């Protein structure tokens, strides 16, 4: 299986090579030719559902793999016979459409009431052999979850990296000027559910790395304060309500600490505080703004935004030694840092020519590249595997929406969760 890791690395290195030339047009990065060509057949579905499924399993798989930017999902309309099982695969049919891999399967009734079994296979067309065959069982309400699980297994098999198709996201919906809600949904926007509603703005939701809680900033006390809400019990605590503003919560990688931003009666400053609210201490003190903290995966460095140099730029500080370094130099303002799980890539919003775009910087060699075109992109966050970016985008005069962009820049996909203003999102962790 790990032969394909090399393939993914090739894509990534190509993308970084182009970054070095400073070319910002994303179409050429890696190139579509470097995506894995895969055919996904309609599954042989033998189960009657009470409710119509909005998408069939093959469509869910296709959407997942396309969204990642690493797959070229082929049109199978012209292929004469659709195999239900591995022994029905006609390899030359699939070679003819240049498929390197094929996913096929059946949805069968399970043994219990309202249950189903999905038997599926991943086939290597080049090598003419079955890579894996699995049966996933569940009740019919788990139809989409099972499909996402198949996507995860295929993704890990072919890229060597865990998939994030089973993960959750959270986002804020602004329905009217005095109606806000924080929602949790599947990563693709399905199964959305409000977990808190308020008449006042909610911003900066951050999912704890252990998956159990979401911290967020609410204006319900006529000023920004931080709540932490337990996702199992639904109970929440008023976590930070110090004098002045309380905002920008950021969980440490072990979920034991948070970096938060307080003002008292001065400019925004970063503080560290235990998850139970104890042992608060100021990280550093300058007259300038220090905000938007985010932890490096090593738990020892915090990246943050400061205007100490005259404009908003990203810096990092070692929380043990207090050694501080400026990290970003391109663009007028660089905001909202997020670090990939391997610690190698910095993701942020970069402002040039009054346009705000999602940008990436390789922390090893400081190569810089923009992933989106703006004009008003915001709140970029890595998927837990670092291969996709969740962000907010807004065209002039339009309401803001959320979507994903693959880090090779090849695929930008909206997440459709409603016609309202959608903003300020966070991505939950991989839970298996």
């Amino acid at each position, binding site marked *: 299986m790990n032969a394909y890791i090399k393939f993914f690395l090739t894509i990534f290195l190509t993308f970084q090579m182009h970054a070095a030339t400073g070319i910002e047009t994303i179409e050429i990065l890696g190139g579509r030719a470097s995506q894995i060509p895969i055919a996904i057949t309609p599954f042989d579905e033998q189960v009657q559902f009470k409710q119509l499924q909005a998408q069939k399993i093959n469509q869910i798989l296709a959407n997942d793999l396309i969204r990642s930017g690493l797959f070229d999902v082929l049109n199978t309309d012209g292929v004469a016979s659709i195999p239900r099982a591995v022994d029905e695969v006609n390899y030359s049919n699939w070679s003819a459409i240049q498929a390197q891999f094929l996913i096929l399967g059946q949805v069968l009734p399970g043994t219990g009431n309202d249950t189903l079994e999905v038997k599926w296979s991943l086939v290597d067309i080049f090598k003419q052999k079955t890579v894996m065959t*699995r*049966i*996933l*069982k*569940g*009740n019919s309400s*788990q139809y989409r979850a099972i499909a996402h*699980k198949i996507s995860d297994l295929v993704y890990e098999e072919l890229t060597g990296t865990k998939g994030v198709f089973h993960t*959750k996201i959270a986002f804020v919906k602004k329905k009217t000027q005095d109606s806000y809600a924080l929602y*949790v949904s*599947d990563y693709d926007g399905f*199964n*959305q*559910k409000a*977990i*808190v*509603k*308020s*008449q*006042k*703005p909610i911003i*900066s939701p951050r999912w704890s790395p252990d*998956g159990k809680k979401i911290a967020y900033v609410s*204006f*319900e*006390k*006529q000023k920004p304060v931080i709540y932490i*809400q*337990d*996702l*199992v*019990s*639904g109970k929440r605590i008023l976590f930070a*309500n*110090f*004098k*002045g*503003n309380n905002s*920008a919560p950021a969980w440490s990688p072990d979920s034991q600490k948070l970096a938060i*931003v307080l*003002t008292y*009666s001065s*400019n*925004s400053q970063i503080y560290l505080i235990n998850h139970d609210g104890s042992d608060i201490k100021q990280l550093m003190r300058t007259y300038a*703004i220090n*905000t938007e903290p985010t932890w490096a995966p090593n738990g020892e460095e915090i990246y943050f*935004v400061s*205007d100490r140099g005259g404009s*908003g730029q990203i810096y990092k500080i070692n929380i043990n030694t207090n050694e501080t370094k400026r990290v970003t130099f391109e663009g007028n303002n660089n*905001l*909202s840092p997020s670090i990939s799980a391997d610690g190698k890539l910095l993701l942020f919003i970069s*402002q040039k020519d*009054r346009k705000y775009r999602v940008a990436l910087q390789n922390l090893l060699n400081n190569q810089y590249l923009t992933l989106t075109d703006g004009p*008003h992109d*915001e709140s970029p966050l890595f998927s837990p595997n670092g291969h996709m970016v969740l962000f907010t985008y807004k065209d002039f*005069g339009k*309401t803001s929406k959320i979507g994903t962009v693959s880090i090779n820049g090849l695929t930008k996909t909206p997440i459709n969760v409603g016609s309202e*203003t959608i903003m300020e999102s966070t991505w939950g962790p991989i*839970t*298996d």
Partner: protein
Amino acid sequence: MKKSLLLASLLAALFAGCSTTEVEPMGLNAPFPELESDTAEGSGADLSGSEADSGLGLDSEELAKLKASEVLSERSIYFDFDSFAIKAEYENVISAHASFITETNAKVVLYGNASYEGSHEYNLSLGQKRAVAVRDALISLGVSDANIETVSFGEEYANQECTGSACGQDRRTDISYEGE
């Protein structure tokens, strides 16, 4: 099969302990707090965590004076894009408020705001910096720190569809008197 057990545990893990409803069997089913009742605590800023009240509220005479004065009815100080410098045109307004606060021992809350461009959190900091700029100006004119609270609304109440100079309306600090 082993994998199906894995799936089952995967699905159960995040939502363990949730009550089930038929509507969203995969969703988070915990009851969520409705906050509408929490928002009716009062219109002023929440000052919990701040030092004890040092000033009294304004008496009726003082309130009348505040209302009658033309210059004191000017409550908004506007700033340029990405700027915190107080423009010369607002010196009179700020000095009138400084005198009134000093005379009456009034307490004020300075609400900073920012236009929508850029991140919500950075704009919260920019709004705060604008509130702090007005606070510093008041203090330089003799107002006690204890009479001033600063709060930022960032871009949260800004016009989200403005372009060009129209966005300038959102780059401001509003002066609000407690007990008014």
